[in-house]
């Protein structure tokens, strides 16, 4: 009985915060656009019979008929994958250095990684606009040092989007990798070196495989939100930055077409479910390994 109650809590959570909203969005994706409040039809006010008979998959067929959506999904996937990889390149050395730092420093270093969260995400992205703009700090600095003679255009390009995503999500990469490296038994490395490994070989053959779970967890924590990212591409990206978050926004706000916007969201969710399930499996296996 007690066990059942314990299981019920996460499932109630899933039902209230995922399944019910999803059913609502899915229902809207099967509706038609209307000039009314709310701007789609049918609603339950029409009665159950007409309500269900008016639903269809027309909007999904529409998505398939225009390659804009396909391109936006692919472009989002590419941006999310590339930025996840770059975040890993940036985050891993930081996590490694943190795990290697003297014991008494680690809480402070940990604190420093988390510290940016004390400022609003939006303000931090705005700050990047100040840094990357033509007249911004970065260009001023580079001009001053003489590295460049004309200001670089970084803001409003995909480069700025990558910088924004890496900056924002790097703590999510560092923390799980740090947790994995922190638990690593130092004597294993010593053993590897005693057995003739160079330091690099020991790192590659021992440290990396043992921090694999941290890398996987960190990568998912970066990839999943980056795929649907809207704020960073709209503030730092240029008009050529095609991401599904922006397409969704346009369907919703410019076209006032909630049904098509919902259909875009449902497909995005289907794309995300695959990595989420993989992530879940990995977590489960990890838990079993430890048990």
């Amino acid at each position, binding site marked *: 009985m007690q066990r059942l109650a314990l299981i019920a809590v996460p499932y109630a959570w899933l039902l209230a915060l995922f399944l019910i909203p999803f059913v609502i969005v899915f229902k809207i994706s099967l509706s038609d656009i209307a*000039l009314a409040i709310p701007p789609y039809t049918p609603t339950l006010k029409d009665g159950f019979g007409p309500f269900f008979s008016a639903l269809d998959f027309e909007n999904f067929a529409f998505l398939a008929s225009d390659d804009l959506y396909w391109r936006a999904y692919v472009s989002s996937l590419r941006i999310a994958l590339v930025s996840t990889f770059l975040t890993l390149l940036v985050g891993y050395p930081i996590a490694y250095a943190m795990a290697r730092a003297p014991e008494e420093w680690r809480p402070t270093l940990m604190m420093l990684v988390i510290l940016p969260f004390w400022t609003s995400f939006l303000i931090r992205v705005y700050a990047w606009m100040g840094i990357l703009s033509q*007249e911004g700090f970065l260009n001023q600095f580079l001009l001053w040092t003489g590295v460049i003679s004309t200001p670089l255009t970084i803001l409003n390009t995909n480069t700025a989007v990558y910088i924004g995503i890496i900056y924002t999500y790097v703590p999510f990469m560092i923390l799980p990798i740090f947790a994995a490296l922190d638990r690593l038994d130092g004597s294993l490395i010593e053993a590897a070196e005693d057995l003739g490994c160079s330091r690099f070989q020991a790192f590659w053959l021992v440290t990396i495989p043992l921090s694999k779970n941290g890398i996987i967890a960190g990568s998912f924590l970066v990839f999943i939100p980056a795929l649907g990212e809207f704020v960073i591409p709209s503030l730092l990206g240029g008009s050529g930055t095609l991401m599904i978050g922006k397409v969704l926004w346009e369907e919703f706000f410019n*076209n006032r077409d909630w049904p098509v916007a919902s259909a875009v969201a449902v497909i995005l969710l289907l794309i995300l479910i695959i990595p989420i399930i993989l992530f879940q499996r990995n977590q489960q296996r990890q838990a079993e390994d430890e048990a």
Partner: protein
Amino acid sequence: MKKLMMSSAVLALCATSALAEEVRVYNWSDYIDEALLEKFEEETGIDLIYDVFDSNEVLETKMLAGGSGYDVVVPSGTFLQRQISAGAFQELDASKLPNLSNMWDTVEERTAQYDPNNAYSINYMWGTTGIGANLNKVQEILGADAPIGSLNLIFDPASMEKLAECGVHFLDAPTEMIPAALKYIGEDPDSHDPDVIAKVEPVLAAIRPYVQKFHSSEYINALANGDICVAFGWSGDILQARDRAAEADNGVEIVYNAPSEGALMWFDQMAIPADAPNPEGAHVFLNFIMDAQNMADASNYVYYANGNKASQPLLEEDVIGDPAIYPDAATLANLYTTTPYPAKVQRVVTRLWTKIKSGT
């Protein structure tokens, strides 16, 4: 940003007296003298919660979702018309608005096109959509005879290619940009025919590589700071950029011109949502705004013309006397208005816009 801090300050003030009556206003960003907000609270004893937006689309989505919680909102003409037909607004009670007698019939005649008899809305400000240019930079690049008052400046690929190096921003609003492009190629700017609208695609595609950004509010600061040298935007916003640059004394000189080929004239209308929590207070706010002195203060601050005749003697000379704000008869005759697109055409327009912006 300043506006955002202001509205949160107002919010904080209101939180301390949660029991008092309150009015929630949702207006465009950079669109009012903040002193007026304090004056309203002092005069009426009503707490004012003032939030801002920067696109009609954001407002419209809130209106169509319902339950926005706002008492006064400020859609532009075509959006107002569509939202009225969706049932988003309530009719105004003229008996609670004695200051209606201050309004200007010349503007009321035009706004009646969107809101018959002006039954649902009052005019707050109106203006034109045109070209803001950093005079020195543009003349440096294109020579002293640069066509800063003509659509050629922004739609001719040869001039745009050169301007790209100093930065050009366009409004991210297809309902503003497509009529302008239609005007440039000599078509009816208010055309609802998808085949005619499609003609702007090659025009915009040709200059697309030279547009740094499509955005509807960033250009104010970008122009004022000298980050960009040309923006196609709203008259008062560009004039605000001119003043910010003058205040900063950074050597940037901004000029605004309504295109000589003809410019879009638009109207921002104050209306009360059908489900406003406090329609009584909303009427008090509208009446306060229609006061001649208050409206004059607002226009003197934001550099937009208003629809209030009684406020005109109280306007400063650089507002009422500036043909960029209050156009002379010849320019006025050259202005055009647009009407809302039906849903199907809207989709064509948005799709075209996305295609132009992202190249797909």
